[in-house]
């Protein structure tokens, strides 16, 4: 009778312990997810700023060479076919081996009065497979000079 009472006690404490470990696992998961979301929010803020800056640089440039010149700092530019890649570190500083990769397509289209340049700007990280943000923009360059 006494032994049966002991067994019931040990079993109930074991169940309680399992429940406790389960609660710990759930809460640890919630905290880990909060940390991950916080890091993602930080990356998204930087990516949005980089995309906006690239769009402004595109507006100021009169051709692809000038665009590369505006974006170039610390040898962070790679010219690719149909576009430009710029690299930035996590502090948003231009860097040759940056964490963020900003890719701009440059698609000029001649019109009677000038050139319409369409561009898609994509920002991604070195670890990510999906772009953090992407925006499409266009700028009209009248007769080789921006209006």
């Amino acid at each position, binding site marked *: 009778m006494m032994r049966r009472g002991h067994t019931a*006690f040990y079993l109930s404490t074991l169940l309680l312990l399992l429940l*406790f470990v389960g609660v*710990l696992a759930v809460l640890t998961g919630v905290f880990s997810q909060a*940390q991950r979301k916080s890091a993602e929010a*930080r990356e998204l803020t930087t990516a949005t700023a980089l995309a*906006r*800056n690239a769009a402004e640089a595109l*507006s100021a440039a009169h051709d692809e060479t000038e665009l590369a010149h*505006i974006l170039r700092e610390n040898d962070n530019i790679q010219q690719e076919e149909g576009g430009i890649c710029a690299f930035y570190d996590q502090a*948003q500083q231009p860097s040759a081996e940056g964490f963020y990769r900003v890719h701009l397509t440059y698609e000029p289209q001649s019109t009677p009065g000038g050139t319409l340049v369409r561009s898609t700007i994509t920002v991604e990280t070195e670890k990510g497979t999906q772009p953090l943000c992407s925006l499409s923009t266009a700028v009209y360059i009248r007769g080789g000079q921006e209006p």
Partner: protein
Amino acid sequence: MREEAKRSQHRYIIALLGVFAMGFLLLVLFGTKTYLQTVRSQNENNDRRAVLTYVATAVRAYDRAGGVAIGTGPEGAVLLLRDAGSDAAYEHRIYLYRGNLVEEYTASASSLTPESAQALGPTDTFSLEKEGKDLLRVRTDRGETVICLRAGEVG
């Protein structure tokens, strides 16, 4: 025999309490660390947006011929945003002062009054670079923003 059983039961209960207490302690430490990191990151994001986006929006609002200029302030550059009109009696000034980006709206002829200026957000650096005639690069320790002036030029 009965005493021995009781003693082992006590040891078991104390060990169990120890496990519970340690688990709670670790959970609280991890939770606190996560909370602090999240809040710090959120504040940094907010500060960055507040400072850089505000400056970009202010420049856009004054984007007209002669509307944007760079001057010299107490701790480096001053962004001078002048009202429309040939006389331009008033101007909006943004500059660094004692670890904060501050702004003031005052008569163009008056000197800077940083003590009464409104703080926009914390930053230790603030620099303005003109590229070409219409590109303004604003750098702070929160990041940088590039602004292309559509109508005016940087004076």
